[in-house]
C-alpha cells in the first residue's frame, strides 16, 4: 500500500499547489459565471507575471539557505522603472511629466534606457551579494539596507514624480501579445524555464542547492560558495529589473514607488510554492504556481466584489496555511 501512496504523496508535495489552484478555481467558477472564461484566465496569469518573474530569482536566493532572502526586489523594481523613464524623457520634461506622454524615441535611446535599467538592477543585486558573501552580513539586513537605499535613489532620480506614458515598445512588453499570449506571461515562462533548467540541470544549480543543504560540506567539496552567492543575488537584481520594465509597460507609468511590497508577495509565492525557507530544496515551478494562486485569489475577490477587507487576510492566511502544510509534510517524511 505504501509503495502506491508514496509516489502520489511525493507528487502532491511538489505540485500540491496545482491542486489548490484547481480547487480555488472551481469554487470561484461556481460562484460567478464570469470567472471561468479564457480571457479571465489569461488575465489571472498576466496579473501573476510580475510576482512570477520576481519569484524565479527569489527561489534561488531562498534555496541558498543560511537565511537567504532578498527584501530589496521591490525597490529594485522601482529604481529600474524610473531609471529607464529618466533616460527616455527629454531633459526639458524633467519634473514636468504631468500629462500622458506619447514619446517616440529612437531605438538607440530605448536600448540605452533599458540597458542601463537592467544594469542598475544587477548592480544593486551584486552589492547585496557582496555584503552577504564577502562582508558576511545576514541577507535580511543587507537587503533591507538596499531596499531603503534603492527607494531613496529612485525618488531622487525621478524628483519624486511619476512619468505618465511610455514609448510603444515598452507598452508592448507589458500589454502586447504574441500569438494571442500576453507578453508578461511569455517573459515569465521563458525566465521560469531557464531558471528551472539552471537549477536542475547545471552544475551551478546543483551548487546552489548544495550550498543551501549544508554550507560547510559544500565549501569542503570545492564549491566556491562566495562566488555563487554573489551571482545568485546579482541575478535576482537583474530579474527584478526585468520585472520593473515589464511593470512599467503594463501600467504605462514609471513610478518611484513601483513594486512597493512586491518583495513580500514574491517571498509568499516562493513559500506557497513549496520552497523551504530553511534552504536546500525547492522549485521554480512551484514558485510560479504560487504566484498564479495568489493572483487567482485576488482576481476572484475582485470579480465576486468581496469587500477588500477580506482580501489581504485571505492572502495572508493562504501563505500561513501553505507553510504549515509544508512543515507538516516534512515532519511526516522525517518520521518515516
Amino acid at each position, binding site marked *: 500500500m505504501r509503495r502506491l501512496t508514496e509516489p502520489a504523496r511525493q507528487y502532491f508535495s511538489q505540485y500540491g499547489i496545482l491542486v489548490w489552484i484547481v480547487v480555488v478555481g472551481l469554487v470561484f467558477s461556481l460562484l460567478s459565471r464570469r470567472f471561468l472564461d479564457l480571457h479571465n484566465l489569461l488575465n489571472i496569469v498576466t496579473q501573476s507575471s510580475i510576482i512570477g518573474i520576481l519569484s524565479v530569482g527569489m527561489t534561488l536566493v531562498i534555496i541558498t539557505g543560511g537565511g537567504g532572502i532578498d527584501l530589496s526586489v521591490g525597490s529594485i523594481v522601482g529604481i529600474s522603472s524610473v531609471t529607464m523613464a529618466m533616460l527616455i524623457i527629454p531633459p526639458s520634461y524633467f519634473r514636468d511629466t*504631468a500629462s500622458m506622454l506619447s514619446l517616440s524615441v529612437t531605438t538607440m535611446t530605448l536600448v540605452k534606457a533599458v540597458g542601463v535599467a537592467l544594469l542598475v538592477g544587477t548592480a544593486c543585486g551584486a552589492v547585496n551579494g557582496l555584503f552577504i558573501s564577502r562582508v558576511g552580513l545576514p541577507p535580511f539586513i543587507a537587503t533591507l539596507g538596499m531596499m531603503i537605499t534603492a527607494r531613496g535613489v529612485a525618488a531622487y532620480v525621478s524628483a519624486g514624480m511619476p512619468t505618465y506614458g511610455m514609448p510603444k515598445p515598452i507598452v508592448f512588453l507589458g500589454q502586447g501579445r504574441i500569438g494571442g499570449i500576453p507578453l508578461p506571461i511569455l517573459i515569465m515562462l521563458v525566465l521560469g524555464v531557464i531558471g528551472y533548467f539552471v537549477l536542475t540541470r547545471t552544475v551551478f544549480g546543483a551548487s546552489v542547492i548544495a550550498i543551501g543543504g549544508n554550507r560547510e560540506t559544500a565549501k569542503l567539496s570545492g564549491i566556491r560558495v562566495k562566488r555563487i552567492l554573489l551571482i545568485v543575488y546579482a541575478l535576482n537584481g537583474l530579474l527584478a529589473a526585468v520585472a520593473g520594465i515589464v511593470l512599467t509597460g503594463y501600467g504605462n507609468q514609471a513610478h518611484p*514607488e513601483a513594486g512597493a511590497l512586491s518583495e513580500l508577495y514574491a517571498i509568499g509565492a516562493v513559500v506557497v510554492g513549496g520552497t523551504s525557507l530553511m534552504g536546500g530544496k525547492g522549485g521554480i515551478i512551484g514558485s510560479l504556481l504560487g504566484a498564479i494562486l495568489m493572483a487567482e485569489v485576488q482576481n476572484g475577490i475582485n470579480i465576486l466584489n468581496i469587500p477588500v477587507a477580506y482580501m489581504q487576510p485571505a492572502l495572508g492566511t493562504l501563505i500561513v496555511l501553505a507553510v504549515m502544510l509544508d512543515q507538516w509534510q516534512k515532519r511526516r517524511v522525517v518520521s518515516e
Partner: protein
Amino acid sequence: MSELKKRVLTGAVVAFAALLLLPLAYAGGANESAKKTSKPKVAVVVKTLTGDVFQLKMAEAARDRAIELGADATIYQAGGQTAVQKLVSILEDLIVQKVDIIVVSPLDSKAVVPAFAEAKKAGIVIVCMDQTAEGNDFVSFISTDNYKAAALGAEYAKKALNGKGNVLVVEGAPGSSVGDQRRDGFKETVVKGSDIKIVGSQSGFWQNDKALEAAQNMLQANPDVDLIFSCSDVMVGGILEAIKMAGKEGTIKVISFDGSKFGVNLILDGKIIADVAQFPVKIGKTAAETGIGVWNKSIKVESLARFIDVGTTLITPENAKSLVDSAF
C-alpha cells in the same frame, strides 16, 4: 578621623551638593527662556513625498507657511502609501524630540491614536490635515470635505449618465478614512434619485498597477459598464489602461478625484469627463496657521472648529483650460 580627612570629606559633600543644586538653577533659567522664545518647532508628517504630488504640495505648503510665521519646520515622511507603522514611529520619535506642534496626515485613523494621546500629554499641539484620526487628541482637522466633494462628482455622474447606468468604483487603500469618505460620498449620492447601479467596488490601494488589476477584474465581471469613479488621480492612469486593454476605450466615462495637473490634462485630452479638485496648498497653509495659532494662544481652542473645510471645485471640460495652471 584626622583633620585632613575631615576637611576633604566636608569639601566633597559640599561639592556634591552644589553639583546637585546646579541643574536646578540652570533649569529655572532654561524654563524662563523657553517661555520667552517664539520659535516653535513644527513637524510636518505625511505618508510619502514620492509619486504623490498632493502630499508633496501639502507638506511643502505647511512647512513654508510655518517658517513664514517664524517657526522651525521640518517635513517627515513615512515613505509609502501604506507605511502605517513607520508613520507611528515617526510620531513617537517627535514626542521624544519634544517638538511643539505636529501637523500630520495620519495614514490610518486608528493606528495613530495611542501616539496622539502621548503627544497630547506631552503638551504637543496636533493638527490633522487631509486625513483625520479617531479620538479627541488633536485640535482640529483641516481638509477637503471628502464626502461632500465626492458627492459633487456623483451629481455630475448622474447628469452624464442621464440618471441610469452601471457604475464601478475603484477605492483607495483599506483603512484610509479619506478613501472611505470619497467612496461613500460617491456611492451613496449616485444612487439617490436615479436608476444607477453600483455593480462593483474594489480597492486600488492608491497604486497605479493595483488599480489597473482591480478595474480589469471588475470589467471582466461586468461587461456592461457605463462609468468608473476613481478615488484618486494616482489610480486613474491604470484604470484608463484597463479600459483600453478591455477594448472599451471611449465607451466608458471616467470621473476622478484630486484635481492634479495630470487629472486636468486628462480632461483636456478628453480621456476623463471630470475631476473633483482638492487644494493641498490651502490645506497645508491653513493647517500650519492653525497649529501655530493654537500654540501661541492667538487662537482659542474652544472656539476652533473641529473640522475646517477648505473647499472643492468640480473640474470639467468647461472650466479645465482656466484651471490647469493652478492645479497642483
